[in-house]
């Protein structure tokens, strides 16, 4: 995600398609043409785009695993430590009874994993971010209905050619995305 500049160069240029397959083709051709700073916007997840945009980000699964491990350690450690800190010996049974600790250990594993998956996903996506230059384009509201957008960002090294290139892909239309001054 590019940082907004002071003197407002364009944020990017946007092409609208009415079919997810065309968008995937467009993304592939844009990458072949050498554009690197681009993103696609769709009303529903299109798995082919992950490949076409070469998104190889597995931080969410790793965070989930870490959260699960931390949760398990906290859950198990808490029970072991409290049982030793305030021992209640009953009939010579072990103070640290492993089977009796497993349920809470499992629950906290789940809690840690899910919290880190979801919070991690939001943080990595830089959400919540209520204001964004794309929302300044009136047609962009169709990105949550039935239109599919390809955006080449203004900081792409070959941004000069971007408008002409997108027009060549026969989209529904090509639109400039102006930079908007928003709260940072």
């Amino acid at each position: 995600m590019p940082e907004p500049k002071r003197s407002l160069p364009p944020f990017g240029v946007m092409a609208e398609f009415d079919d997810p397959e065309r968008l995937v083709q467009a993304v592939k051709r844009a990458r072949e043409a050498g554009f690197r700073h681009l993103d696609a916007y769709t009303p529903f997840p299109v798995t082919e785009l992950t490949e076409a945009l070469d998104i190889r980000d597995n931080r969410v699964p790793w965070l989930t695993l870490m959260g699960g491990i931390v949760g398990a350690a906290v859950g198990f450690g808490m029970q072991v430590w409290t049982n030793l800190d305030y021992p209640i010996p009953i009939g010579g049974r072990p103070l640290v009874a492993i089977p009796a600790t497993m349920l809470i250990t499992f629950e906290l594993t789940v809690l840690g994993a899910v919290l880190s998956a979801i919070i991690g996903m939001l943080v990595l996506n830089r959400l919540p971010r209520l204001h964004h230059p794309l929302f300044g384009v009136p047609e962009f509201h169709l990105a949550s209905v039935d239109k599919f957008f390809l955006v080449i960002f203004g900081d792409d090294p070959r941004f000069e050619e971007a408008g002409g290139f997108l027009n060549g892909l026969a989209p529904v239309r090509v639109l400039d995305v102006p930079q908007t001054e928003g709260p940072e």
Partner: protein
Amino acid sequence: MTDTTRDTEGATAYAHVTAEVTRIPLHYPRPKAWWLCFLPACGLLAVFFTALGVLLWNGVGVWGVNIPVNWGFDIINYIWFLGIGHAGTLISALLLLLNVHWRNSLNRFAEAMTLFAVVCAGLYPLMHLGRPWLFYWMAPYPNSMTLWPQFKSPLTWDFFAVLTYLTVSALFWYIGIVPDLAATRDRANGRLAQVLYGLGALGWRGSARHWARWGQAYRLTAAIAVPLVVSVHSEISLLLAAGPVPGWNSTVFPPYFVLGAAFSGFAVVSMIAVVLRKALGLEDLVRPLHLDMLGRLLLATGLMTAYGYAAEVFDTLYAAEPADLSLLADRLTGPFAWSYWGAVIGNFLPLQLLWWRGVRRHPLALFLIGFSAMVGMWCERFMLLATTLHHSWLASSWRPYTPSFWEVSLFVGMLGVFLVPFLLFIRFLPVISAFEVKEALFEESGEKGAGHA
């Protein structure tokens, strides 16, 4: 030429789905009918607060519970509500992982049902504490008494299980609804609606990078939620099964409880599906196919629950412990025999009609069968607690149990605690997952295209 026609059709289909779903919160189709449901639900909520006030002022003595039946409506309804909740997670998470497309028309309201049912369930153990304001004593925190919770007790496990389940189902439901909140935000005309849906949507804009991470988080949470459901209801069965009480101390309890929970929940999901599609004109999205699938799920889990009943009786007869045999006889013929036979008849008799496809696809029939199973499962929860506790080891400790007026009114009011937020959800949020329906449409069109080529 044909290519363009297909595209326009595809695009119209996507727009149609979005319009169908988002028109409900933005231009609610039947406001009068909604108020006719909402006002009585608020009345029930008032009953709840009255019964709660009476309870807090006087203590649990206003209930009919006493030694030996010290778990009455509180724990019966706790288990019942939580069980209903489990079906939402199973429909949503399990069927997501299995990549079953028809789930997309059902998962949103099923998850909302889960959320509110878990809230109702969670309130019960709090209220039955006697001094609910001290509930935080269940949490391990350094305190001036230098005490820790008893981590070897199923009661403490319960605290962790229900809190985890509530958190996970709320988060799963929320990240599932965010893209549809964005769609509602983009179609809202009023400023207030734009701002409120916009806040809920967190600034979602459908970026492919966001979707990629979202998909990872969503599927991982789903994969974790399925064993979570099994663990939560197994743990609840241990509240009973871990005690040396005839009628409870049985290894069949965890699976028996989990399946019964799924069964009662599918029953309620079927009822909600039938009512919603009719009331909101969602026949395009919740089609007879979906009712058919719900009917099959209901039939399958119902038969598995029936197996649990048979296994329990067989267990008792085979072990031939005198106390267990005496309890079994009491269940079948004693003062609470109505609850045993109510459960058997309500759960399994109308259920057999679901073998017929025509019945599964008939909305009213499915609704009535679901209702019967819901009542039947309540009878089962009553039977499991009341018969067991009132008929313990020693004949000298056998005592009757009659629920008191305030116990019953708290339960009646609790239906309001469920209905009020659920009706608000129907009125103000997208009740069907529009983007997942669209995704399924796209994938199906791709499969068809590939088939032709």
